[in-house]
């Protein structure tokens, strides 16, 4: 609780936290939606915003507001799956490479370097165009997770490399701890804060890729996400027809979501780095 209070002193964190809370509320609201988001032509098409439909209706005959709540929920689900999955890979690779060192380390790091450098987008497009339409929320999350780990694996490895030289490592080895016990019980607690601070960044990254893939028509277009909502709006020429409420809703929501996720991650990593925390106090005092 104290940590949260400290964090809330930062304007960046306050903004990000508020926006995320509002979006989460909207996402939860989708469970109480009176309509099925996959059904078409429930309402008259292209109605401008009014009391009955807060954000109007689209050319598919759906309510834009309720559609958006589902979109936020599904996009968040994808990003959480992707973030969790890539965290698992990153932790395993980072711990193994850092602790074992030597040849294993060089092998794992050269693979993660290759993943870092590779042009991700064409590869993702190739893969998802082959399995187009069969991508459920879960499998899209896993697919993004496969590519999201290398940078964080490097961070974790660097942390473990420095932990390995500390005295408690020798103490535990000499007192007969097994390697697995040592790594899980002694190292993991040091690594976890690092993992948490990268989760948010990774979520933003996966939502960005999801939006891009969906706009290109490469995900399952029947599931409403931020990306597929934009895809339909662009495909129906919402710009030319002047149905701005349909197009602007996903744009505004996703821009807010990206900015607030980014601000949250910046603020948290500033907080966890003592040097910048001191600087921040200095700025606040001026």
């Amino acid at each position, binding site marked *: 609780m104290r940590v949260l209070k400290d964090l809330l002193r930062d304007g960046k964190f306050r903004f990000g936290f508020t926006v995320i809370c509002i979006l989460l509320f909207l996402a939860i609201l989708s469970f109480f939606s009176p309509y099925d988001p996959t059904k078409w032509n429930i309402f008259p098409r292209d109605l401008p915003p009014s009391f009955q439909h807060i954000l109007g209706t689209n050319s598919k005959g759906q309510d834009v507001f309720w559609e958006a709540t589902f979109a936020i929920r599904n996009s968040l689900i994808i990003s959480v799956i992707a973030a969790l999955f890539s965290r698992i890979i990153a932790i395993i690779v980072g711990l193994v490479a850092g602790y074992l060192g030597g040849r294993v380390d060089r092998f794992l790091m050269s693979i993660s370097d290759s993943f870092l450098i*590779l042009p991700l*987008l064409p590869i993702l497009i190739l893969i998802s165009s082959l399995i187009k339409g*069969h991508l459920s929320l879960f499998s899209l999350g896993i697919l993004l997770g496969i590519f999201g780990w290398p940078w964080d694996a490097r961070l974790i490895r660097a942390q473990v490399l420095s932990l390995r030289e500390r005295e408690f490592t020798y103490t535990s080895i000499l007192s007969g701890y097994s390697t697995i016990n040592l790594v899980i019980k002694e190292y993991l607690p040091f690594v976890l804060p690092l993992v948490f601070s990268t989760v948010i960044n990774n979520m933003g990254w996966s939502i960005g890729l999801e939006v891009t893939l969906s706009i290109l028509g490469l995900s399952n277009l029947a599931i409403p996400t931020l990306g597929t909502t934009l895809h339909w709006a662009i495909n129906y020429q919402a*710009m030319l027809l002047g149905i701005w409420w349909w197009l602007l809703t996903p*744009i505004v929501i*996703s821009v807010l979501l*990206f*900015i607030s996720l980014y601000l949250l991650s910046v603020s948290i990593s500033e907080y966890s780095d003592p040097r910048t925390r001191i600087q921040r106090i200095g700025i606040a005092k001026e």
Partner: protein
Amino acid sequence: MNFVRRYLIPRLISYFLVIFVGITIVFIVPRLSPIDPVQQMINTITTMGTYMDPQAIEKLTETLKDLYGLRGSLWQQYLNFLGRFIKGDFGPSFFRFPVPVSKLIADSLPWTVGLLSVSTFLSWLIGNILGGICGFFYQKKWARFLENTAMVIRPIPYYIFALILLLIFGYFLKILPIAGGFSIGTTPSFSLRFIADLVKYALLPLLSMMTLGIAVTLQSMRLIVQNILREDFIVFAKAGGVKNRTLLFKYVIRNAMLPQITGLALSMGQIFGGALITEIVFSYPGMGTLLYNAINTGDYNLIMGITAISIVGIATFILIIDLLYPLFDPRIRYR
């Protein structure tokens, strides 16, 4: 000799390793999925309304298997795949049938390279200078304003940012063309008018890519500069009475640029993806638009070719930067 052994050879090894890993991913991941691409293609054709008797389907399956390289054991497929890749042979394109994929890519490559190199170079330069100034004068109000602007722009994905610019300049203000690489009806030539036309059409894609690029470079530069400001040689230079201007450009920015070169190499893959996306939004006649057409027509060979070419292209670009790096950093040159 020491330089070759300790610097050049490891770089070359990692160059080939990156290409190898990339091509292997491209080979393996589609085969891990439970979906059969041949069956998928046949389904697409039959749902389009074409009636086919079983014999024709049989024949088509065989041809598609040949095209996708799905014959023989997995190991044989892999060797065939590598062999074709080395020869640069990606087969014919489906959507413009007899034309080979390599020809289509060669036609659109110059547009992408032009857009990418101009925007990357300019945004890297401007971002570094602005970021250096921002980091140096970090207590000033305008510096913090610039920094906050960069912080808000940076997380927006390329597609959405380009879309917003398109809406503002193309639809509301109607001052810039919204699609294409040059006006319809003009023939490419070296006249002044054509070049002006080219610039006019490239302006929006460039603006969209550069704004995001500048925001990213500015932020990382500011962080590096703030760390450099704490170093002893800066403190001494200040105490010795070096002018602020000299201090900033000769001492701080020059030193901070080194890690930024590495940073550029690392983020090149992402910037390239952004260029593809930006081209799609503005229908710019480069590889991105070609890729988009390929996706819409289910042209597997073309997507494959573009992916392979971009892996090689990015890896080569990074290799070149790595090889040029000793020119900028004497510590590596004299090691």
